């Protein structure tokens, strides 16, 4: 039974059409999506084989840069050193990170009405000195303040930190493992604040926020109230719209990307990436809690292939 | 049998793994005397001694029925206090097993758990017991060395010393001299003879001469049954049963 997998040469065959093998590895966040895409791609090009494995963004990058795989799946910013080693990045989807509190939070009313300013977030997550809510904003109650951050290295935390002008290691608070862990910890503690990827806050099917957890709006213009055009958190549609149109800033919205080594030349690879960048493929994103690229972004990414 | 019977065994039956090892044992062992159990290898002598001490208790697949009365107390009664019984009866097992400690600590083990803490008392107990068993000279320089480095014969005497140090009322010796040279054997036999003034002694032995030399009564066991029981000379010289006659023939001739 055991032995080596058959190797087939990659390229175009007049009889079979596209044929070859694509190896992909990297971030868990993108893995389910890529699996879906590959299934659909195979319906059109049945002679293309996929080897997809998950193992973390760094693993994907390392694999791609050493030529072990064709595509590395990345859910965080690419570091300078990784570009220097030949990393070539094509964005394929967007995601957003939002601040979250429990719906039992004593300040929930205030929070929903006036939002939190960027520098207040900075005081919450980076300074780490505030012990009570009213030390952030005098109009809040004097309840204890508990700040939750991610204990595992995660794209979400990195992105949230980038929004505050820092990196993940600068975030101060109690470390919680994983996005689900964070959502649960927030639900259980009325005095806590944390952050999540949007798909852990909104029910994808209904578009509503999960019970027990609420998004903290960002007071984008810092005027102390939440204007209607800053308030798009009611359901998933309006939020993703805001992300797609750039109303919700980036970061904390972020790109999910493919990393390949050097500009792609292999036909199968290019075809697959092109396929991912079609509207049809992008439409899969929404129902999975991710946000499609908008028209300009799609164009921009496609030109990277030429 | 003029003396007061100290151990009374009634209708004792032992099954191991479905084999009937001891069959309908009924016997009264007299006080302050030496009783020897003789019989061919594998006839159940060791098993019999172990039932006196309830050492078969935690072996798998063993059932014991009947009763063993020691000082009129049934040791197989549910309320019987095993530790107490075992202290009263010192079993010297057939295969010597030194405890994993020094020679000194082996002998001091019993007195210590029974409450003797005083160093000099322990010292004198150890010395006395080792001298009694003729081991003192051989080991006095390495009392604190590991006991399992001793030769088998030395181990046997050590285990004797260890067993006697708790001053049991009843001594059950299972071939206690089997690994000993004539001189040491003599020492131990003398010891038993001296001890019988105060204690009740039950010995298993294969050496009929030894049985003759030191015992007052003899039990002959054959295939798990008691064939004959009586005063030494009667059993050895004028056996009533044909089986016994056969067995002691080598001795008589």
């Amino acid at each position: 039974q055991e032995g080596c997998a058959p190797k087939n040469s990659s390229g175009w065959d007049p009889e079979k059409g596209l044929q070859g093998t694509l190896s992909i590895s990297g971030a868990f966040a993108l893995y389910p999506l890529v699996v879906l895409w590959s299934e659909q791609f195979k319906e059109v090009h049945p002679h293309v084989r996929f080897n997809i494995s998950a193992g973390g963004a760094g693993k994907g990058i390392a694999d791609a840069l050493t030529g072990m795989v064709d595509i590395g799946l990345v859910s965080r910013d690419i570091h300078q050193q990784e570009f220097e080693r030949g990393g070539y990045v094509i964005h394929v989807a967007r995601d957003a990170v939002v601040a979250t509190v429990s719906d039992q939070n004593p300040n929930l009313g205030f929070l929903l009405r006036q939002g939190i300013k960027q520098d207040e977030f900075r005081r919450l997550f980076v300074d780490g000195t505030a012990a009570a809510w009213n030390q952030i904003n005098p109009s809040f109650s004097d309840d204890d303040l508990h700040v939750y951050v991610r204990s595992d290295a995660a794209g979400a935390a990195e992105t949230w930190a980038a929004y505050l002008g820092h990196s993940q290691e600068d975030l101060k608070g109690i470390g919680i493992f994983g996005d689900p862990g964070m959502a649960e910890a927030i639900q259980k503690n009325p005095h806590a604040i944390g952050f999540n990827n949007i798909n852990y806050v909104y029910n994808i099917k209904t578009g509503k926020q999960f019970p027990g957890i609420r998004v903290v709006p960002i007071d984008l213009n810092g005027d102390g109230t939440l204007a209607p055009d800053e308030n798009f958190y009611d359901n998933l549609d309006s939020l993703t719209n805001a992300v797609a149109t750039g109303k919700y800033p980036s970061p904390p919205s972020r790109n999910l990307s493919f990393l390949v080594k050097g500009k792609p030349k292999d036909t199968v690879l290019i075809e697959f990436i092109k396929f991912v960048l079609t509207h049809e493929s992008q439409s899969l994103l929404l129902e999975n809690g991710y946000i499609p690229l908008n028209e300009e972004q799609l164009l921009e990414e496609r030109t990277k292939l030429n | 049998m003029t003396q007061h019977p100290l151990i009374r065994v009634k209708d004792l039956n032992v099954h191991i793994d479905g084999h009937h090892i001891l069959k309908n044992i009924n016997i009264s062992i007299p006080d302050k005397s030496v009783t020897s159990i003789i019989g061919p290898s594998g006839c159940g002598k060791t098993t019999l001694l172990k039932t006196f001490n309830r050492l078969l208790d935690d072996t798998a697949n063993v059932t014991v029925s009947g009763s063993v009365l020691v000082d009129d107390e049934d040791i197989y009664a549910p309320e019987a206090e095993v530790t107490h019984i075992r202290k009263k009866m010192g079993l010297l097992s057939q295969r010597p097993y030194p405890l994993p400690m020094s020679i000194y600590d082996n002998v001091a083990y019993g007195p210590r758990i029974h409450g003797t803490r005083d160093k000099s008392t322990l010292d004198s107990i150890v010395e006395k017991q080792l001298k009694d068993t003729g081991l003192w000279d051989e080991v006095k320089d390495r009392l604190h060395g590991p006991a399992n480095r001793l030769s088998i014969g030395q181990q046997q005497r050590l285990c004797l010393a260890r067993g006697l140090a708790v001053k049991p009322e009843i001594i059950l010796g299972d071939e206690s001299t089997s690994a000993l040279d004539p001189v040491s054997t003599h020492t131990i036999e003398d010891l038993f003879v001296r001890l019988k003034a105060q204690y009740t002694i039950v010995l298993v032995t294969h050496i009929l001469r030894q049985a003759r030399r030191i015992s007052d009564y003899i039990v002959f066991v054959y295939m798990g049954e008691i064939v004959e029981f009586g005063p030494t000379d009667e059993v050895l010289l004028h056996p009533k049963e044909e089986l016994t006659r056969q067995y002691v023939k080598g001795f008589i001739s």
Partner: protein
Amino acid sequence: MNFRIVKDKLIANVMLILSISSVSFVFLIGIGLYLRAAPLFEEHTLLSLFRGSNWAPSKNQFGFYPFIMGTLSVTLIAIVVALPLCLLTAIYLTEYAKPGIRKVMLPLMNILAGIPPVIYGVWGIFFVVPIVREYIAPQFMEYSSGYTVLTGGVVLAVMIFPILVSIVSEVLSTIPKELKDASLSLGATKWETIKKVVVKRARPGIVAAMVLAVSRAFGETIAVLMVCGNVPVAPTSVFDGGYPLPALIANNFGEMMSIPLYDSALMFAALLLFVIIFLFNLISRIILNRIEHKYSS
């Protein structure tokens, strides 16, 4: 006839090679870790790595002190919790328990040895974190999130239960019955026999099982990192969060392995852990040898 002897010799040589290569494997790992950690030494002194308590790789600050303390405290708590419980359990199972209980418990241990650490972590979040947060911590302080070194230690303790109980029971059950009989017939109670004879005879094995369990505790990763808070600050009480070295490695390795200096720092963390485990084992082995020497036959 000759063939048997040739076979024996051949096997001996193969085994010798296996044994020697496995010993050198330790060196290989040590050297490998050192080489991969080496870039870090070009910019930092060893002392600053040990003593520094700031962890900010992007600002080129690599202080490992909090992680070392995190590792030590979580492991210590785990051992303090697990050791007495497991010894008593193993003794109970081998000496006192009815065969029925024994037959359930020992296989259960083996099943548990195979449950993935993630599940222990999840279990810790479900049960231990709330208990610490709601019931234990409030006795001592105002607020604790429940994600503490104590929680990590307890979860870790539960994780090493199987290995401790299995090996200790295995060792205890090999003690010959005759030896126990010898002590019992001197009028010792069963407990005295266990305390003074069985445990003594099994001591090298028990100590070895303990050493193994501690080693395992040092290295256990996922379950601990899920519950111990992972704050890179040296814990000052058991209700503080902590960040053990294995957690640091596991957290960041997959994400950051493509960044050279970060990678080196993680390999240095592994090297540190390696050294800690090595020293611990060396010391306990020296002690173990003393014991073995005293009681071996």
